């Protein structure tokens, strides 16, 4: 059995030798698929959303072949660094902490507001319990403030925590919360002031991938210049969204 496994492994290694030469680079795009309107899984089971369209357009302009990959938010940076895919395009805000581990392109979505959502007005946002997704700028912001932070692995669970009373409020990107509040038939409501966080959303790349970063930077600039990026922002985030 051991020889069987070894020889299967060896076969896998040699089989890919033959395919190795002379192919253009394929860029694998890592995303979460659970954060509409940035990225989500549509009814057909495909990755869809603002970032899907931006990413496909960027790849076209940079003349790259792109392939989309799903990954948990929790391990999205380790798997980029480990080489499972080549970019992160998952609504990730540019922050100094992340910039120490990976590189970012310029932002393709301007700095956006984060907001609190609760079951009713009058929730204590400075001393109460606030839910946020693990390893997000919102979680960092809550942790630095006076409120008690409860973290969840997926955005879905942060909303559920508010609905079932585990947390007093959820703190997340306003663009993610808006459709949920609109669909809740009055059960959920925005509370408190909006907060401006982060340096906008950018594409994450390995620090050693300077060439790829330059290509995407150029493509983002060209999309900003001809207004196609603004058109996509308005299509997905509504006419009130901040544009370039």
């Amino acid at each position, binding site marked *: *059995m*051991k020889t069987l*496994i070894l020889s*299967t*492994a060896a076969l*896998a*290694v040699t089989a*890919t*030798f033959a*395919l*190795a*030469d002379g*192919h*253009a*680079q*394929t*860029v*694998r795009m890592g995303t979460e*698929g*659970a954060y*509409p*309107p940035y990225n*989500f*899984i*549509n*009814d*057909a*089971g*495909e990755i*869809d*959303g603002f970032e899907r369209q931006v990413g496909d357009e960027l790849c076209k302009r940079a003349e790259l*072949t792109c*392939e989309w*990959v*799903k*990954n*948990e938010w929790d391990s999205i940076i380790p798997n980029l*660094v*480990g*080489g*499972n895919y*080549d970019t992160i395009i998952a609504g990730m805000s540019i922050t100094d902490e992340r910039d120490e*581990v990976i590189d970012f392109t310029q932002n393709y979505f301007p700095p956006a507001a984060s907001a609190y959502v609760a079951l009713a007005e009058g929730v204590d946002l400075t001393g109460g319990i606030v839910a946020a997704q693990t390893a997000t700028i919102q979680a960092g912001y809550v942790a630095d403030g006076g409120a008690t932070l409860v973290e969840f692995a*997926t955005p*879905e669970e942060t*909303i*559920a925590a508010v*609905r079932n009373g585990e947390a007093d409020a959820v703190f997340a990107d306003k663009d993610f919360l808006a*459709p*949920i509040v*609109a*669909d809740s038939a009055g059960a959920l409501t925005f509370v408190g002031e909006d907060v401006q966080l982060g340096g906008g959303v950018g594409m994450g790349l*390995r*620090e*050693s991938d300077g060439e790829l970063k330059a290509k995407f930077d150029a493509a983002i600039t060209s999309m900003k210049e001809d207004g196609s990026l603004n058109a996509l922002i308005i299509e997905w985030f509504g006419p009130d969204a901040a544009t370039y």
Partner: protein
Amino acid sequence: MWSWCAEPDALSSVTWLSCYLTTGVHFQFYNAFFKVLFLLAIIAPVSLAFGFMGAMAARSALLPLRWFGRSYIAIVRGVPDIAFFLFFVIALDQAFEWMRHKAMCPDWSEPIRQGADFIVCQQAKLPLGTAPEWIHQFYAFGLAVVTFAIVFGAFAANVLFGAMNAVPRAQLETAEAYGMSPRQTFWRIQVPQMWVFALPGLSNLWQILIKATPLLFLLGIEDVVYWARELGGTKTSRFTEYPHGDWRMWYFLALLIFYLLMTWGSEKFLNRLTLRLSKGQATTGGEAQRKEAPV
């Protein structure tokens, strides 16, 4: 999928459900069930083989081999599964890539490790960056099988090791008295008789293995639990034709039924197997069968 599904908003509940449950994303969910079953069907025999070899090594007359077998059992049983899964798969993957890198890109001057980055040349990537997504999936599947087999193989080895020692000494002595070599005694007397002792332990392992499949998601394989969580989550009307609230409870209920059925079915099968293996054995089970049998 159905012709009446063009306008989901206008449908009554039953037809709405028939449309909702046949969206593309639901078929990925149904596929995940087959994926889990398929994986179990492969992992079980491979782990058993690992276990058998581990047990043989642990009983070997050769000292280094015995050390190897015993330390394999001790180490893998001692390390928490989740740590093993996270570490081992990444290490295995990087080991393959490192070897390929050394073989295929001898002129590469930059270091492979740059800070946290693990950089090998494009040709050494496994699977290749250019490979279609199904190859990536297949590769992840293969890694999952190997990892599961090593982990569960260690437990199986321990069970089989104990079962081999449980075969009554008198049986082996009789074999020796008939002039069988140690090898013949092992294969003709000890192995056929040990299964009935190993079965309770192995059936436990099988039940644990069934429940362990959600660990697959750690390896990037989208299993039933991932899809249940994804599909059950709140869907707003802007991004789907079929908006609904938090339905995770119902999806997890479906999983509960699936796993209970699996457990129930394997229980039945294992009971029959125990009866079959007890036949003619010098155990209480075998003895009881002998007494009941019509003369």
